């Protein structure tokens, strides 16, 4: 998993937690991650950054969320709704994403 190239964008309005998430999401040898803390800027970031996975944590509010989901669906970006804050569930979610990607290949 850690050797599969993945471009992440992580969104969380809790700045200390976002910093930790970005650090975790750079752990893979070929993982890149950009952190965004303002949902209004998220779609612009996605438009300007090659993204495989959007990790959404605290602050994922409407109507932005629905717009983002539509944008991601149209641009082959997988969304992980991340609960729990840290790494306990995150690697599970990434593994599930990779499994799904493998099955659809």
């Amino acid at each position: 998993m850690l050797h599969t190239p993945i471009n992440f964008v992580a969104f969380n309005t809790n700045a200390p937690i976002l910093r930790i998430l970005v650090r975790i999401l750079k752990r893979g040898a070929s993982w890149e991650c950009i952190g965004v803390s303002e949902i209004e800027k998220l779609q612009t970031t996605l438009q300007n950054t090659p993204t495989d996975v959007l990790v959404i944590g605290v602050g994922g509010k409407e109507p932005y969320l629905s717009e983002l989901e539509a944008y991601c669906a149209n641009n082959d970006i997988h969304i992980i709704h991340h609960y729990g804050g840290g790494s306990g569930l995150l690697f599970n979610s990434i593994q599930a994403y990779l499994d799904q990607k493998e099955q659809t290949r």
Partner: protein
Amino acid sequence: MKQVLHPAGQRGAANHGWLNSHHSFSFANYYNPQKMNFGMLRVLNDDTVAPGMGFGKHPHDNMEIISIPLSGDLEHEDSMGNKAIIKEGEIQAMSAGTGIFHSEYNASKTNEVKFLQIWIFPREKDVTPRYDQILLPDLSKANTLHQVLSPNPDDAGIWVHQDTWFNMGTFDQGKSQSYDVQKAQNGVYAFVIDGSFEIEGQTLGKRDAIGLWETDKIDFKSLEAGSRLLLIDVPMNFN
């Protein structure tokens, strides 16, 4: 009624020396796509922490986190200024909501602490974080299920932001009882803490579990003296 059996020996296991953990569901380095959750129940970790050791400061958000010490004492500290010791016979709940940092250490320098850590997906995201701990009713009173957690602040036990109810009890050999599921569309995850039970036709030993859904009642029977059971009644769907 539908059911899924989770034998104790088929749980994920991680022994880090200071921490010996068994995961009922996928967690950290343990990944089993067949064991991601039981409805809103996402994590049930059966942890043993060495004396003086523990989990350093780390974050959580958007999760209802419940700790139940089975033996020994846990020392809790969090970013809301709470500092407390949680003992056997107590229960702790954190609504992580918009974010909380906390640490949990074995308060003893000589004895292990054993506890269950349970994560429930919240009913609503981004709530104000909160921390609570309470003394449980006398669970040694045999042959009675005690409600130790609910969604209602005014009800028995501690409360969380989800339509979930936890019941615990210790039973004499041969005692039978029924449990009424609290809400339509909820299921029940029955976890044997000690001893053995027959639950809906299945024999379960220590740390075995069975998930049951599409039913409004669960029947169980204790197969040996001092058998302890935890029933986790949770919504089966995200709504």
